[in-house]
């Protein structure tokens, strides 16, 4: 900088005057100039000294700063007043793994995380332009490529005039803190999300019942349209009057530091009543008081389901305990695990005595034990339904009574047995009645046979013998009267008349008998011979079983319907069955086999055969077999086959017998599907 007076210029007037003035002026200028030069020199000296002082000060200052910057452990950079990096310390170079030159271009590289760069550039640019300190957080790339969070603070260094000399920037690694904050933020957000999305009501209730905080689920549970409508209200008002005091005590106990659990009813804002359960713990609030932090759950549906289940269980128990049947269940391996009260009462044992494998045998009659256990074990193995008639101990009369035991397995989807469920029914009385019925049936069958066959013949004999007796007596008397002397002719005539009358009586008896056997009309219906046969078998099955006859049937599938008198044909079949059964009375048990077979026969006929393995037929009886009053049996009148043949012939059919190749005989009849003419058939019987 230069300081000096401007050059002085003047106009030429007169020489002398001019010269004098010039001399005067020059004198003045010289004085003045010398004066100014001296001042200027002094000033220059002063300025130089000043500059030297300032430069020295700056040199000292900068040198110290550089030294400090290089030696501090943090990451530091210094920048020119325009923001260009002109110095970075070693820690920063080491962190970034980059040279000063590279770091000088941080604004275009990846030193700052790309996501942070635009924001950083904006803050930085604004800071440099305004000269205000800047402070931001950003991720910086480490030498290995990982980004870590830094707090970046920039401060300007100014000279005495306030001009910015340089910027100092301090980078502090805040990654740990930042991550912790993130985690915390995340965790808080999660918690809030959990609370807000949980279907349970989360609430904070003050000691006086004021609702301080509640989640959306809580508002919904209370039937409130929004959370805001709930806050600040007294929660006690929601609790039903009958539960309110209990709830108040509960709340106060929680606020006094206890944890707790309570079930109670509320009335929702829409008036609906709900059953809630709540778990609560004390929570210290910001103002230092203790409130109740509670989680409430609407268990109305669960309670109702429980009530329904209880009711259903009660009904089932009622059913199982009042049903007049003994019930039991067993594990897949057959161990009893349940008996109903009736079962226990019946046997007089307690549950422990009846539980377990084989315990059931305690109540069985010793004679039934083996077969029952065998059958039960077999069912356990195969999963087949179990059924047995056993004598079971009955405590009330300390006797064994006949019972029917049934059990069925409950299977899973793979067919494995999960459980056995069984019943026991006392059928003692029924069985006795059945036995009596069987006796009665047998007696009745016998009576029928005796009535239809034996008594018939007896009455025939009686009916015929009575008039015969009269005839003989009268004839004898008549002879004696005629032989007397004198002959009593009048008496003889009278007795002879009576003889004739009695002979007519005898003739009438015979006529009545014939009518009885043949009948005038054959009433027929369309019928299935197989059905009729099955009915007869059903009627006589118990009889056959008692005589240990093993019955086999081979009933043809293609048998046509026939037109016949059903009852009469059944009498014939019954008669053949009885004869066959009687014929096998002398055969060993287990070999009494009886085969009933039906078949189509030639000429639109059907045939039924009854084959036995009994005493068989000897040749000399064959022709007498169907005569009335012929019998090979010690008991019997020999009417059955005769009547049977009459019936079959009336149907236009044929009844015959033949010896088997092996033991026994076969009786058979064959009848046309439709009798040709009933009258002819009846006539044929009369003629035979």
């Amino acid at each position, binding site marked *: 900088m230069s300081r000096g007076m401007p050059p002085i210029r003047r106009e030429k007037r007169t020489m002398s005057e001019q010269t004098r003035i010039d001399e005067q002026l020059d004198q003045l200028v010289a004085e003045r100039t010398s004066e100014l030069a001296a001042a200027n020199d002094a000033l220059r000296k002063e300025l130089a000294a000043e500059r030297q002082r300032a430069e020295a000060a700056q040199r000292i200052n900068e040198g110290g700063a550089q030294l400090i910057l290089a030696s501090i452990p943090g990451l530091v950079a210094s920048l020119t007043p325009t923001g260009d990096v002109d110095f970075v310390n070693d820690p920063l170079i080491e962190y970034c793994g980059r040279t000063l030159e590279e770091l000088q271009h941080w604004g275009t590289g990846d030193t700052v995380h790309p996501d942070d760069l635009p924001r950083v550039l904006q803050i930085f640019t604004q800071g440099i332009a305004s000269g205000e300190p800047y402070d931001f957080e950003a991720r910086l790339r480490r030498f290995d490529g990982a980004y870590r969070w830094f707090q970046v603070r920039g401060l300007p260094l100014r000279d005495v005039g306030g001009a910015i000399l340089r910027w100092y920037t301090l980078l502090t690694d805040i990654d740990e803190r930042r991550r912790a904050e993130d985690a915390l933020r995340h965790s808080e957000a999660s918690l809030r999300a959990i609370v807000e999305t949980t279907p349970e009501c989360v609430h904070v209730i003050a000691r006086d019942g004021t609702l301080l905080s509640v989640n959306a689920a809580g508002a919904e549970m209370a039937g409130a349209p929004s959370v805001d409508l709930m806050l600040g209200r007294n929660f006690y008002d929601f609790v039903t009057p009958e539960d309110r005091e209990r709830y108040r005590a509960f709340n106060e106990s929680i606020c006094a530091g206890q944890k707790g659990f309570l079930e109670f009813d509320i009335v929702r804002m829409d008036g609906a009543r709900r059953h809630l359960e709540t778990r609560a713990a004390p929570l210290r609030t910001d103002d230092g008081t203790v409130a109740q932090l509670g989680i409430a759950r609407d268990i109305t549906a669960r309670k109702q389901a429980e009530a329904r289940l209880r009711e259903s269980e009660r009904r089932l128990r009622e059913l199982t305990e009042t049903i007049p049947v003994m019930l039991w269940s067993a594990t897949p391996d057959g161990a009893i695990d349940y008996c109903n009260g009736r079962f226990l009462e019946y046997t007089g044992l307690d549950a422990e005595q009846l539980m377990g494998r084989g315990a059931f045998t305690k109540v069985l009659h010793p004679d039934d034990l083996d077969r029952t256990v065998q059958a039960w074990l077999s069912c356990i193995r195969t999963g087949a339904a179990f059924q047995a008639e056993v004598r079971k101990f009955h405590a009330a009369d300390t006797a064994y009574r006949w019972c029917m035991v049934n059990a069925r397995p409950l299977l899973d989807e793979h067919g494995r047995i999960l459980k056995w469920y069984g019943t026991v029914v006392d059928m003692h009385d029924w069985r006795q009645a059945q036995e009596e019925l069987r006796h009665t049936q047998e007696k009745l069958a016998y009576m029928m046979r005796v009535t239809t066959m034996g008594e018939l013949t*007896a009455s025939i*004999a*009686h009916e015929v*013998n*009575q*008039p*015969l*007796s*009269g*005839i*003989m*007596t*009268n004839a*004898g*008397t008549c002879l*004696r*009267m005629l032989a*007397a002397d004198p002959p009593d002719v009048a*008496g003889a005539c*009278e*007795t002879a008349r*009576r003889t004739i*009358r*009695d002979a007519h*009586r005898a003739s009438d008896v015979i006529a009545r008998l014939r009518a009885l056997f043949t009948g005038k009309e054959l009433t027929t219906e369309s019928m299935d011979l197989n059905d009729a046969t099955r009915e007869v078998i059903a009627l006589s099955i118990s009889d056959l079983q008692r005589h240990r006859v093993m019955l086999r049937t081979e009933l043809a599938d293609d048998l046509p319907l026939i037109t016949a008198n059903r009852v009469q044909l059944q009498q014939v079949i019954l008669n053949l069955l009885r004869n066959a059964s009687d014929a096998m009375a002398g055969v060993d048990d287990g070999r009494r086999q009886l085969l009933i077979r039906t078949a189509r026969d030639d000429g639109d006929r059907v045939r039924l055969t009854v084959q036995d393995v009994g005493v068989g037929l000897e040749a000399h009886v064959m022709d007498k077999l169907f005569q009335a009053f012929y019998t090979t049996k010690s008991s019997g009148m020999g009417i059955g086959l005769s009547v049977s043949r009459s019936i079959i012939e009336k149907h236009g059919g044929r009844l015959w017998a033949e010896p088997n190749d092996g033991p026994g005989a076969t009786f058979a009849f064959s009848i046309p599907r439709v009798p040709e003419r009933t009258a002819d058939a009846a006539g044929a019987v009369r003629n035979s």
Partner: protein
Amino acid sequence: MVQRSLVSVVDDDQSVRESLPDLLRHFGFAVQAFSSAEAFLASEFVSLTKCLILDVALVGMSGPDLQRELIRRRQAIPTVFITAHGDTSVRSRLLALGATECLFKPFSDDALLDALTKALGTR
């Protein structure tokens, strides 16, 4: 003429009640015929009867019942049973009970006379 022995016939068959008395009278007996055991017991002839010809299968009280009733009353009468139900087992049973004879209908006049003679002990 000596008093003729009274023979009573009890049979529910009319032809027997008609034919037998004629024959018996011809044999020389006095005869009374009854259609039932009850009618006989109710009559005055019980104590007068020397021989009873009695049908086995009577309606109501049977022949054997009547015989037992008479024994019970200590009024036993020699009895010839007659029956249309021919059965030897019936015969032996009746004889064991004290009957004189049991004839199967129809029987001959000679058989009847033999039986009566045996019953009355007159031979």
